């Protein structure tokens, strides 16, 4: 009797388990309504019945907006479940749709009990079925000969162990898997073809559930499958328990977590002594000792130190995003003292322009925009955040503080009201329109998109982890679970975008009051004004008097309230957003100030199929022990602190690598925002850890880090190519030379303005339009999240709708048209030409002066010759100024202007 398979007891177990689930759910009171519905008899049977028109009843709202993670599954669930879409997190559990059923289900009570009965019922059926349907050897042979080949040919590509993630969680390669089914439920009910999903799918009658996707099977094949199910779906037992395991996305285990904590980026910093003790004839700083060891190992020699002109140009662009002046160059080149370079770096680090350059790097990370969605009520001024970042970097605010204030300045004792501007990191987050005429499930999806946006920004910016990947399933590669994800989602579900005053609470309260009163007065003034229009002369006079009085009160109120007109910053405060039904089909949003909430895990990322509530906390793998739930309000402050208290090693590695990347053009880890399993491994792990350790030891001082990096021999190398060495290491992974850098749009444009003597050095304040006469630094150009200025788009400005780990540097002909034909280029060329003509006499002297201004060097003979040729070939029609303008334009457009050695 070896053929008899104990599926029936197994089936009973499944059913029993669902009974337990149902029972458990029943205890969760009304929060679990949805949950119960999943196992409800009535609605469940709708699914199996396959009544036509079901789809019309289904709350189609849930299909709108199904967003990011492929919730599209809802749209056409049937086809997707049975098809092999990779990743299939999208295959949303359409259970929720099928089982949710028609309107009115909401009102039903006792779901828990109903599902309990259902579950026992199923268990009973399972037992009975087991008794009736024994599997004979003949049947199994028949299965192997006739049925299995069909399954293999048409189904296994997507529904078997041969695919990492079977579509819709369904596998058809074992009897257990068939019975366990996928997200829609059991694929086969033995003996009952009419109730079997598989049969329904191959029947193609249900437009939403048609398998195989390429086309309906021939009639005889379909009949065969029907017959197979009718005979009780005989299927030989499998030996491997692995194979029998119902498929589904990977689940994180305690083992994964333990191993995860040992992953290179997540383990504690490992202090290492550099292999080389020094005195190698090259190394200047500790950094170099690590690099030298690697170079030696790879059989490479470093490059000579760059000449001083190159060095000052490199360092100045790097730290300030501006070219050095000719005087600065000459002073540095002529400075004989051994610490001249060190003093140069210190001078640059002390410049207020440093914050403008490095602030822009950070704004890429923070997805900064000057313009937020039009429907927001915020009146805040985005630039306050930009200026805060610039100021913080100039002041060398310790990085841990820098980050913590951006997440929770309003909740930290250590931050002043002026620091509330830091909250712009969250306060300027992208928001998505919530159409209240749509159903709550739709809006919940939109809200869930916003959580994901915040989690993604926080995860990648500060932790170098793609936490958002765990929204629909446990992270596929990193030890981040869905629980971790929803634990963070709760923080953002308890946080509201809100303007923040930059003055102490008491004063702010007075301003708030005054603004309210002014608003009331304005309302009153409007009324009176409109009344006046209809009034007769006498009444008008009286109303005029009234108006004058109102206006006086208004002015008085404003002048008596200090800081009344002081702009407020885009920030956040503590409030929970509730998405509530408003009538049968519509939605109401409610903010509960000062209230924090945990959110329910969303199965497969679908808000319509909530799982258990998840307490707000820090991700488990990043926590030192068991993660403690957040207790203070939303938990924003605790989150901000946890980054540095629970996972300082990771936080330090990430920022050290970012700074390194911005200095060298290539990171020690080449994926600056992915330190997970999918990211790159560090080229110099000991160096990274050593630098991170010392960085923390230096109080998270970014200026210390800049200095340490820039004083290294590695940084000071020449960038000249060398065919022999680049044959060994073409990507310069081992830093045998300095990388040549193409300037981003901002320093390039700034340098052109500076060279022409037209750069307007005023710092801060509202953004400029990047047109016409704008002459301030490009960091002050308006950034519009969804309508980026064409010039910014043209030159690889990162789309500010999401975190940007690094800029790309594309080279297109359209960019060069800007050089050839834009008024910007032509006008700057003209004014620089005019200045040179006025300033100097003689072609040679003028060309020299131009080279000094633009490239901080003298022209060589060949360049002088080219200039002479260009400028003197004259048919007599072109004015001198025009010829020089043409010439200057060429210099401004040349590669030397855009690249830094």
């Amino acid at each position, binding site marked *: 009797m070896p053929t008899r398979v104990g599926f029936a007891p197994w089936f009973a177990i499944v059913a029993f388990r669902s009974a337990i689930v149902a029972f458990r759910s029943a205890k969760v009171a009304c929060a679990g309504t949805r949950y119960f519905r999943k196992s409800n008899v009535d609605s469940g049977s709708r699914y199996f019945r396959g009544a036509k028109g079901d789809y019309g009843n289904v709350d189609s*709202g849930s299909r*709108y907006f199904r967003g990011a993670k492929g919730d*599209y599954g809802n749209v056409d669930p049937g086809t997707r479940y049975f098809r092999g879409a990779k990743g299939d997190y999208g295959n949303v559990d359409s259970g929720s749709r099928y089982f949710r059923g028609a309107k009115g289900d909401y009102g039903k009570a006792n779901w828990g009990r109903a599902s309990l009965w259902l579950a026992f019922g199923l268990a009973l059926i399972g037992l009975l079925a087991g008794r009736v349907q024994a599997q004979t050897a003949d049947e199994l042979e028949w299965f192997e000969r006739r049925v299995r080949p069909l399954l293999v040919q048409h189904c296994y590509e997507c529904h078997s162990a041969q695919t990492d993630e079977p579509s819709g969680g369904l596998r058809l390669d074992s009897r257990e898997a068939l019975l366990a089914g996928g997200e829609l439920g059991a694929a086969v009910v033995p003996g009952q073809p009419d109730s079997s999903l598989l049969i329904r799918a191959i029947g193609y009658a249900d437009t939403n559930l048609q398998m195989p996707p390429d086309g309906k099977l021939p009639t005889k094949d379909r009949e065969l499958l029907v017959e197979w199910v009718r005979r009780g779906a005989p299927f030989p037992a499998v030996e491997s328990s692995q194979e029998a395991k119902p498929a589904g996305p990977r689940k994180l285990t305690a083992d994964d977590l333990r191993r995860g904590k040992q992953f290179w980026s997540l383990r504690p910093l490992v202090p290492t002594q550099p292999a080389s003790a020094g005195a190698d004839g090259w190394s200047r700083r500790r950094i170099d000792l690590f690099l030298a060891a690697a170079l030696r190992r790879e059989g490479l020699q470093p490059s000579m130190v760059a000449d001083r002109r190159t060095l000052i140009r490199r360092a100045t662009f790097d730290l300030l995003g501006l070219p050095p002046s000719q005087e600065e160059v000459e002073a540095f080149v002529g400075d004989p003292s051994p610490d001249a370079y060190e003093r140069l770096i210190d001078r640059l680090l002390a410049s207020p322009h440093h914050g403008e350059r490095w602030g822009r790097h950070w704004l890429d990370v923070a997805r900064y925009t000057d313009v937020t969605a039009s429907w927001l009520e915020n009146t805040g001024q985005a630039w306050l955040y930009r200026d805060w970042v610039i100021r913080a970097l100039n002041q060398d605010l310790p990085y841990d503080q820098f980050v913590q204030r951006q997440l929770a300045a309003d909740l930290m004792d250590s931050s002043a009201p002026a620091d509330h501007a830091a909250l712009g990191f969250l306060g300027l987050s992208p928001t998505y329109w919530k159409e209240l005429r749509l159903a709550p499930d739709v809006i919940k999806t939109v809200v869930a998109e916003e959580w994901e946006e915040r989690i993604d920004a926080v995860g990648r910016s500060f932790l170098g982890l793609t936490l958002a990947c765990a929204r629909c399933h446990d992270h596929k590669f990193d030890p981040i679970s869905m629980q971790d994800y929803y634990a963070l989602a709760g923080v953002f579900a308890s946080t509201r975008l809100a303007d923040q005053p930059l003055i102490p609470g008491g004063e702010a309260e007075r301003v708030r009051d005054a603004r309210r009163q002014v608003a009331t007065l304005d309302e009153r003034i409007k009324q009176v004004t409109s009344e006046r229009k209809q009034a007769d002369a006498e009444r008008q006079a009286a109303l005029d008097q009234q108006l004058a009085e109102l206006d006086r009160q208004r002015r008085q109120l404003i002048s008596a309230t200090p800081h009344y007109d002081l702009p407020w910053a885009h920030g956040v405060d503590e409030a929970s957003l509730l998405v509530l039904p408003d009538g049968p*089909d519509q939605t109401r949003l409610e903010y509960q100030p000062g209230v924090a909430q945990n959110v329910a895990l969303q199965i497969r990322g679908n808000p319509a199929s909530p799982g258990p509530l998840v307490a707000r906390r820090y991700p488990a793998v990043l926590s030192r022990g068991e993660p403690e739930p957040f207790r203070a309000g939303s938990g924003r402050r605790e989150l901000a602190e946890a980054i540095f208290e629970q996972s300082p090693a990771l936080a330090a590695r990430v920022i050290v690598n970012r700074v390194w990347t911005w200095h060298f053009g290539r990171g020690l880890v080449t994926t600056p925002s992915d330190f997970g399993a999918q990211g790159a491994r560090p080229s110099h792990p000991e160096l990274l850890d050593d630098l991170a350790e010392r960085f923390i030891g230096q109080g998270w001082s970014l200026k210390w880090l800049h200095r340490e990096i820039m004083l290294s021999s590695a940084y000071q190398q020449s960038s000249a190519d060398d065919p022999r060495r680049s044959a060994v290491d073409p990507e310069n992974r081992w830093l045998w030379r300095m990388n040549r850098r193409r300037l981003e749009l901002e320093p390039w444009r700034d340098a052109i303005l500076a060279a022409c003597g037209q750069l307007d050095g005023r710092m801060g304040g509202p953004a400029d339009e990047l047109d016409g006469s704008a002459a301030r630094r490009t960091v002050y150009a308006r950034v519009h999240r969804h309508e980026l200025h064409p010039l910014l788009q043209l030159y690889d400005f990162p789309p500010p709708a999401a975190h940007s780990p690094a800029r*790309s540097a594309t080279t297109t*002909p359209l960019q*060069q*048209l800007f050089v050839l034909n834009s008024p910007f280029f032509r006008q700057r060329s003209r004014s620089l030409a005019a200045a040179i003509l006025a300033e100097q006499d003689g072609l040679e002297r003028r060309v020299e002066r131009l080279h000094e201004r633009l490239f901080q060097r003298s022209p060589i003979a060949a360049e002088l010759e080219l200039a002479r040729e260009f400028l003197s070939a004259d048919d007599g029609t072109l004015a001198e100024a025009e010829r020089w303008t043409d010439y200057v334009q060429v210099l401004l457009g040349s590669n030397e202007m855009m690249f830094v050695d």
Partner: protein
Amino acid sequence: MTDKLRPAEPASTSTSNSASEMLDRRTLIGRLGGGLGALGLAQLLAAPASAGAADAASATGGTHFRPRARRVIQLFMNGGPYQGDLFDPKPLLEKYAGQRPESVELRTERKTAGLLPSPFKFQPGGQSGVPISELLPRLSGCADELCVLRSVHTDNPNHGPALLLMNNGTIVPTRPSMGSWFLYGLGSENDSLPGYVVLCPGRPVRFSILWTSAFLPGQHQGTYINHASIDPRKMIPYLSSDELPASRQRRQLELMRALNERHLAERGGDAALESRLTAMETAFRMQTEASEAFDLNRETARSRADYGTGHFANGCLLARRLVERGVRFVQVYYGDGQPWDTHNNHDETVRRLARDIDQPIAALLRDLRARGLLDETLVVWGGEFGRTPTSENGNGRDHNHYGFTMWLAGGGVRGGMTYGETDDFGFQAIQDKVHIHDLHATLLHLLGLDHERLTYRYAGRDYRLTDVAGRVIRPIVG
């Protein structure tokens, strides 16, 4: 046994190319950026690394399989046209006028009343007899070219999200547009023109996010051109100099080349420097080429007359001129804002709109056919969604995402057919449903790309245009 590291001078810099020969292809692409505009990623990656290693992709010219279409023109009726007036006749509406049978109890974006029959008659068109509305008499003559998809559906009845889904494959404004994916997969065929051009005589809702390259490299973004004026110099920013004659610019360019080459030689080769040098030359050529390509005045009076007048006619004609020159993807938005969004005075407005598109589209299809371009140019028509068979405000129609019509022509699809069905009233797709993901999968398929394999790694995930969904609609592939 030296512990000393001796900083070395660069060896001779004359053998400049050996370094770049060592680069792996990915690095090469990264370094060269748009300098290799003519090549798509797929082609570069597929080019055999060693002789004899020709893989499947290189055998088919850099695509995953044999491309049926090489270029795409999308005629975008922004606002959402009502299918029941144009391509999906529903005679039963007459019978149930003013009523709301159960199957129309779907939630629309706004409240709608009873069924509102379309006053327009349908005729079988061409040999195939595909029914086409009397509103489109000339297009009806092209019926045999059309593959009418009557069962398209999308996820959202709001313009913004629906536009995003149609263009970017998702409602979240952070993903690359379909055209960027095309370009990423295939590259451009013309170095002197942008590979992806968006024409609109104004601004479609959501604007530039609809053609963003998002996390794909920047050269794959669409180039937006407002063709409200048909002067090429007004259409393309910085296309030509206002003051410099070509001869002077040529001299500038020669000087620039000389300086850049000297600069490069001194540094011993650098792909980034070289690629900018080349791009500068291309830009110079582009001034002529693009001026010519975008100049409708170079068309014969006959062809101008064929297309007719108006922005949309100009857009169609420009599209033909561009695909003729190898531009990979041209989108023509019907107009500023959302002209097809007929919540009021529907019939009257549609009469005008249909008149406006009929002649240009018919002319475009005929013209492409006559020039031998239609077989490899895929033309796509449709809006971001359709409209309701029920009335809104008495004489208007609301958004309908449950079922609407789009059509394809040329580029490897079977002409003279309809595919899929909506219900009796044309409210929702019920048979052979085509989700936008399916449409995208099919477009990619026709271009020779497998939508599941055209991926880009970003933020820890391999992204696709079709996310985790989409299936190719095989019955319509010719």
